[in-house]
């Protein structure tokens, strides 16, 4: 296939002509098989990017390419087969009266054959650990279960890219964990790129790459490790660093020369262990 990526080329967008630009000359690429986290303060343009990616909105300037094909009103149905989206509010994305109907809905819209649909329903519910719930009513599920069904509905269409627009924001910690585990499993089992739009810094640490938005522009692109080194600048643009980064920073200040920017408890513990055992 060669050209498997989402590409934003000098994209600018505003909701109305007399309104300020929400995105200003934004260019980036989401590569095949990559997990990219997108963060930024409220109103920084993250969700607009998500909506541009699968043709819910179209840019006034620049172009967006999915696998080399430009996102336009006429290509939008091809694009949406490739780019699936999971939204924030689990209650706003159900149409079916049973879990099974709901997972089938997207496939019906794409005119898929019944046999294939039945197979995909089973496969995708299995992938999110919701097999056995086929005949349950979606609105009676927990928040985490609802979002897993929403992910299954997207998987069933077999997209190459899945965008999760603050998909864990309305869930409790248990639901959040369920979703993050599901996402990790799905991504490692399938040939998929993920874009997760989030405020959750722990979610960010798990991504391959981070794009930070600020005031409609890309503020930074890099690995989570590179990002959390910029502690003060992050706070200036309304963001924060995880606990581990804050502690690492203070440890350096207290005279402990850490060798790298730790991303999680284990990495920091290993560093501490090294100092502890070699002194």
């Amino acid at each position, binding site marked *: 296939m060669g050209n498997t990526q989402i590409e934003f080329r000098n994209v600018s967008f505003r909701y109305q002509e007399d309104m300020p630009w929400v995105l200003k000359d934004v260019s980036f690429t989401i590569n095949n098989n990559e997990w990219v986290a997108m963060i930024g303060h409220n109103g920084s343009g993250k969700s607009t990017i998500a909506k541009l990616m699968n043709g819910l909105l179209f840019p006034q300037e620049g172009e967006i390419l999915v696998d080399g094909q430009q996102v336009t009103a006429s290509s939008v149905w091809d694009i949406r087969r490739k780019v699936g989206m999971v939204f924030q509010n689990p209650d706003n994305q159900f149409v079916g009266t049973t879990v099974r109907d709901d997972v089938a809905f997207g496939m019906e819209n794409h005119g898929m054959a019944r046999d294939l649909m039945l197979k995909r329903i089973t496969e995708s519910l299995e992938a999110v650990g919701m097999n056995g719930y086929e005949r349950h009513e979606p609105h009676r599920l927990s928040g985490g279960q609802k979002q897993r069904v929403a992910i299954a509905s997207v998987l069933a269409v077999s997209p190459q890219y899945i965008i999760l627009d603050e998909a864990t924001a309305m869930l409790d910690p248990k639901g959040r964990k369920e979703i993050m585990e599901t996402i990790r499993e799905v991504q490692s089992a399938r040939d998929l790129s993920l874009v997760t739009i989030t405020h959750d810094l722990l979610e960010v640490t798990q991504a391959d790459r981070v794009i930070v938005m600020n005031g409609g522009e890309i503020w930074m692109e890099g690995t989570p490790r590179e990002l959390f080194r910029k502690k003060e600048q992050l706070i200036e643009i309304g963001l*924060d660093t995880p606990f581990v980064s804050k502690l690492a920073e203070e440890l350096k200040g207290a*005279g402990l020369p850490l060798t790298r920017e730790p991303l999680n408890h284990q990495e920091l513990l290993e560093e501490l262990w090294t100092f502890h055992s070699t002194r």
Partner: protein
Amino acid sequence: MDISFDKVSYTYQPNTPFEHRALDEVSFKINSGAYVAVIGHTGSGKSTLIQHLNGLLQPTSGEVKVGEYHLKANEKNKQLRNLREQVGVVFQYPEHQLFEETVAKDIAFGPQNFGVPQEEIHRRTREAVKATQIHEDLLERSPFDLSGGQMRRVAISGVLAMDPRVLVLDEPTAGLDPNGQKEIMQMFHRLHKDKQLTTILVTHSMEDALAYADHIVILNQGEVYMEGAPLEIFKQQQALEDVQLDVPEVIQFVTKVREQLGVELEYTGQSIAELAKELTRIVKGDRVYE
């Protein structure tokens, strides 16, 4: 205002196939001026509990006391209006409840309903927007032209303009960016101290419970599962894990340091900087742990 729950049970749709007991003999006390965090999973009874605080729900059995107001099963409380004037509730996603043409009108709606004189409403509105850091220029704008974070602040201002003695906050920072979350939580903490409010915070965030509350009530399946001072509660990691709740990240980390490095380290409310100093001392020298 002192608040107490005495064996409060609440059943939704009693005597039907959908009968569901959301609260089961819940008893606890909140002293006037306390900042209490109520924690529990979705479905643990938190929302049912807070709806008793301003009489939106009436106990199926047992008794709720909020200051001088008593709520009992099968007993009509004629003072509900007064109770609601004293207990301000910030519901989840309160910006969904905005409806007026201008920010000022929306903030004034509550106090107007309670017959507060116009002059006083003006005074309270100015005070409320100052507390929530809404620019006075926005008062004549439509609330629907504002950003999500600003809308949240307008909705909160509407509750503050009631000048309540008790503030009930149901996940007030959900959906905000990290900076917005911190600002809102610090604002409530300031109000709590300045106005000597009794504050009840419903949250999933153990970090917020640790940072702001002086008492924690943990609900599980409609019952009080644990209750106590934050540091005491968070010492019981296993008991919390049994109901799938975590301890705050700093405490998780301190526990790992203690277990994996085999050193003496206890979380007693240190700041991150203090913790870093202590850790440095431990790993670098002063064999304090031997």
